[in-house]
């Protein structure tokens, strides 16, 4: 919502373009089956389209709106999402515009009780978190979509009906120039929490709703504070309700505040109420200068998901598949991971490098990630919005003891989003090899990055297919060479990175003279890691095992069962 006298797109800092679609060829009799149709051109749908384009796969991208989202909404982009944006060639404007951060503070009353420091290892390319209004996320992704010759973007195109056979999906699309049928081999439903595609297929989200409600309000103001997450428990300026404050670009500040039990939502969302509450909160921060109200909305926490993220030839990605509590910034970031996960799999299947059974791993991997998010989010939600007297009293005890004692302070940790570890995935067949390692990334986890002596970063060198990291003291060992040959036969997009601790190795290898990369991966000469296209560890071998590596590669390309 916006202040009286301003329309839904009348922003203080963002100029909304209005997009009109070209006349669809289907209206003039064309009836080609598109490889993929994506419903919803929000951040998740556009990321999926760009991931498919990375593999040379065309898609039609449909959105019922005529422009980007009306408000700042999902504002925190986590490091793993920056890697996804990097992979799809869209990260540069994000780095230039978004505000990176690593720290936070939690207060109880007037006193700071917890200092959040998100891990930032020296080899990482990106900060742990970036703040950016969702309109900019959508604009930057759309700029990349518009540059791609493989993406047929159609705005103002509303999907009215979905029918499916074993061969294809047919969408009835209403556009300004008329209604038409569009055939696609696969459909990705990225049409949000209220997903019309989900409803048309008769599917329902299942799970729990939580009672606590939060107002989110954006204000524009000249306010001097670093980009950090601030959480205020039992603040004087909003008695009985928690406050969260985040800085966004263009002097926009996000104020989240909890409504009191029994507070009337309609009353709480009136402009005069918003101004009074936000004014009191800003005064509590010591902000005495003027401020402008930009936009506001309300939310409550939910943990809801589909039983299966796949329905025949339709895959659900982002909020259409799952709704997660806002605390811990998991909504957008898990959506990015969904889009990239189905994107590389469908990309490899449709360009002929993988077998269609690879697609069966989408639900276990991404639904597993959602369930993991729920376990974490439940804890942070119970702390942020205690659901009963017991949880309220427990929180009061923990917070008040935190003033003098260190032991309960971690309970105020927001448990920010971490990438999920696919250790139970069908694509991670040799987890038992982890026992041979004392450290390094476990099977299924996101690969850590390293700064290279030659410039750039280790993960920048990963390829479109599977990537092997082979650790050597000079030249690759015979077993490593054999692994390379077998892998190249399995995966035409395979790439190998040879990492050598010998400073006299040639230009073809990655120099690790100080042993930093070997230590990071707990590798010895002869060790090998296999990375998936999404830079998660498919498997690792203390001593390179060509047949296990080839078997892992076949499984990751859908050519064999576990």
């Amino acid at each position, binding site marked *: 919502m916006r202040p009286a006298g301003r329309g839904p797109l009348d922003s203080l800092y963002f100029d909304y373009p209005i997009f009109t679609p070209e006349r669809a060829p289907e209206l003039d009799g064309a009836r080609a089956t598109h490889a993929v149709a994506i419903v919803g051109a929000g951040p998740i749908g556009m990321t999926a389209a760009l991931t498919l384009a990375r593999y040379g796969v065309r898609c039609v991208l449909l959105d019922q709106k005529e422009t980007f989202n009306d408000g700042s909404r999902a504002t925190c982009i986590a490091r793993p999402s920056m890697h996804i944006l990097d992979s799809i060639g869209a990260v540069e404007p994000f780095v230039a515009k978004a505000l990176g951060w690593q720290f936070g503070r939690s207060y109880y009353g007037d006193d700071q009780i917890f200092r959040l420091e998100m891990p930032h290892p020296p080899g990482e390319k990106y900060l742990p978190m970036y703040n950016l209004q969702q309109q900019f996320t959508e604009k930057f992704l759309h700029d990349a979509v518009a540059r791609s010759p493989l993406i047929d973007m159609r705005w103002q195109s509303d999907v009215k009906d979905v029918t499916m056979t074993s061969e294809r999906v047919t969408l009835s699309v209403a556009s300004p120039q008329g209604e038409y049928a569009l055939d696609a081999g696969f459909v990705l439903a990225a049409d949000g929490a209220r997903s019309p595609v989900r409803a048309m297929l008769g599917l329902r989200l299942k799970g729990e709703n939580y009672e606590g409600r939060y107002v989110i309000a954006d204000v524009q103001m000249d306010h001097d504070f670093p980009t950090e997450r601030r959480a205020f428990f039992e603040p004087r300026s909003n008695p009985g309700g928690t406050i969260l404050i985040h800085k966004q670009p263009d002097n926009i500040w996000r104020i989240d505040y909890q409504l009191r039990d029994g507070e009337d939502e309609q009353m709480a969302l009136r402009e005069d109420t918003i101004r009074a509450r936000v004014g009191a909160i800003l005064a509590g921060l010591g902000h005495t200068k003027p401020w402008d109200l930009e936009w506001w909305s309300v939310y409550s926490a939910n943990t809801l998901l589909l039983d299966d993220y796949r329905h025949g030839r339709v895959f659900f990605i982002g909020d259409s598949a799952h709704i997660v509590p806002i605390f811990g910034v998991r909504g957008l970031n898990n959506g990015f991971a969904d889009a990239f996960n189905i994107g590389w799999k469908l990309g490899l299947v449709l360009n002929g490098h993988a077998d269609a059974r690879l697609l069966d791993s989408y639900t276990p991997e991404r639904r597993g990630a959602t369930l993991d998010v729920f376990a974490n989010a439940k804890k942070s939600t119970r702390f942020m919005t205690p659901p009963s*007297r017991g949880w309220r*009293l427990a929180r009061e005890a*923990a917070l008040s003891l935190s003033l003098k004692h260190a032991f309960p302070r971690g309970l105020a940790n927001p448990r920010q989003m971490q990438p999920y570890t696919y250790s139970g995935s069908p694509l991670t067949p040799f987890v038992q090899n982890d026992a041979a390692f004392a450290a390094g990334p476990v099977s299924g986890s996101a690969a850590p990055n390293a700064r290279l002596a030659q410039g750039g970063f280790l993960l920048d060198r990963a390829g479109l297919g599977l990537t092997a990291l082979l650790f050597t003291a000079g030249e690759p060992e015979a077993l490593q060479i054999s692994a390379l040959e077998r892998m190249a036969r399995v995966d035409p997009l395979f790439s190998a990175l040879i990492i050598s601790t010998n400073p006299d190795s040639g230009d073809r290898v990655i120099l690790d003279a100080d042993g930093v990369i070997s230590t990071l991966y707990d590798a010895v000469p002869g060790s090998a890691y296999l990375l998936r296209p999404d830079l998660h560890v498919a498997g690792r071998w203390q001593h390179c095992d060509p047949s296990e590596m080839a078997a892992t590669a076949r499984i990751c390309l859908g050519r064999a069962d576990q």
Partner: protein
Amino acid sequence: MSPIPFEDIEAAYDAMAQAIDAAGEAREVQFFSRLALLLAHELGDIERFRAAIAAALEGLPENRS
């Protein structure tokens, strides 16, 4: 420093919150009195128990609930 790992503090926090709700508002004072005596018995050290009582009394928040 706590002598028990943070995961156990989290588990204790969850168990306490659920027990307060199980006791019900009318009987939560009795629940906490009984819990305190049981913990003193388990602790087996009156000086540490007195120190914990003093720490719990210090900075007791105003009654908001």
